[in-house]
């Protein structure tokens, strides 16, 4: 009971984080539609001159809260304890990814904030920071891909009557990993579906992340409820005895 109370609190930070993320996503003027990698330096510099405030505030928000998913990921890691694994290696993998992935996003916000800090900087430098921000944001998927794969593997190896997460969650995670992989190739081209404003690298990738968060939170919420019910039953049984 005690354990799940704290976990429930962590779990309910999720809607707040989601609201902030969505707000930051709409507040950043370069996401809808995504900025074009083909824009010349002067145009990019103008963008930061025109939208200085919105870039700054949205990225400060993201800088605060892009790491806010870490506690939620740790809830998943805790659920993995109940899986029928012989060793903690998959949990270690998840913890490692949970550390490395948010730092990647944090780095992206730093580059965007740098670009907006002195928008009157030489356009070439603004373009550099813009490129670094976008490439970090878009290509920085290795630990997200790995995280989904490790989680899927963990679920596949969880062989009990009532598994912690159902099998379809594993299939779903593999699918998400597959949807994230193309974004890693965003550097290859400045136009088309792979470019950082392209269908695969921007829309598929970000929608996949959003759906992953929604689906995993529903699944996690259910398993949390089951755990706390079990804990309550155990407490009641103890009290009766």
């Amino acid at each position, binding site marked *: 009971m005690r354990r799940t109370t704290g976990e429930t609190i962590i779990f309910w930070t999720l809607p707040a984080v989601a609201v902030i993320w969505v707000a930051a996503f709409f507040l950043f003027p370069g996401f809808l539609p995504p900025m074009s990698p083909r824009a010349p330096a002067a145009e990019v510099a103008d963008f930061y001159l025109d939208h200085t405030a919105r870039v700054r505030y949205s990225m400060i928000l993201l800088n605060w809260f892009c790491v806010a998913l870490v506690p939620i990921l740790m809830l998943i890691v805790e659920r993995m304890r109940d899986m029928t694994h012989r060793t903690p290696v998959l949990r270690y*993998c998840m913890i490692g990814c949970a550390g490395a992935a948010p730092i990647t996003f944090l780095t992206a916000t730093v580059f965007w904030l740098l670009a907006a800090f002195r928008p009157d900087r030489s356009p070439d430098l603004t373009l550099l920071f813009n*490129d670094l921000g976008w490439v970090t944001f878009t290509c920085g998927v290795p*630990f997200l891909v790995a995280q989904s794969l490790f989680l899927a593997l963990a679920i596949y*190896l969880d062989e009990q009557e009532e598994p912690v997460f159902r099998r379809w969650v594993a299939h779903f995670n593999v699918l998400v990993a597959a949807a994230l992989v193309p974004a890693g190739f965003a550097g*290859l081209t400045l136009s088309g579906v792979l470019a950082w404003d392209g269908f695969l690298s921007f829309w598929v990738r970000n929608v996949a992340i959003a759906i992953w968060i929604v689906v995993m939170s529903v699944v996690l919420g259910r398993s949390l409820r089951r755990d706390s019910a079990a804990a309550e039953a155990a407490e009641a049984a103890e009290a009766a005895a």
Partner: protein
Amino acid sequence: MKRLAWRGDPKRELWLMWYATLIFYNVFTVVFFVLTRTQPPAPPWYDADQATAWFAHRHQGLLVGFALMFALGGLSMTSTALITYSIRRMSVSRAFAYSYLILYAVSAVPGLLLICLAMTVGAMRPDRDPAIQHWLYDFGFLSFSGTMGVFLVGSLIWMAAILLDKNRVLPRWFGYLNLCNALTEVVVSPAWILDRGAFSWNGTIAWWINVAVFGMYTGVFITLLRNMIIREDFGTGPLPDLPPRKPRQRAAAEVAEVAS
């Protein structure tokens, strides 16, 4: 325990980690040595125009190679997890295992991701201002070679755990080899100071000798982790010897008995 044993090998998680480690280091080698040819590193004494030409010349290789790293780089966590597990299996505090896990998870960003970012951004626009290309060139190579502390302290943590361990998870000589690996991180530090000679980022000492030590270290620990998995008995006491050795010893003992 029995409920698990019926479905395949109880060591399958460890084996999956081990094979993923093997795949990662192979992909890593192909990406850095073949596709991007960022190892051995390009000369640190290149001026802005030469660095710009270098990016233009390597355009496709850099982009494809590092895209592969962006896609598969997360596999690096498997070796970290397996090594963390090896420490966890030792008769030492969990603090060692967790320290190693955190240090090497953190190392992924400065030690691997930054070079991918800098080189991708550099190769993306070969027509960028040469001064900026030059900076990206330095940034890529120096962040890769010059990320030292996490590996230095991480190796020392592993070393200390091995030397204190009573479960014989890994041989003690490998503990000392960790010290050799940690020392390479000291030896590479002049790469931040000098742009030519044996101590620069592609120098004979700071790169070639260091890479030889690191390569040996990596090959050795992959082999030793394999042995560890074979020996694993999922207990908490000392790990048994490698199975193939036992029959041979027993056979020798029997021969000796018969002879006497």
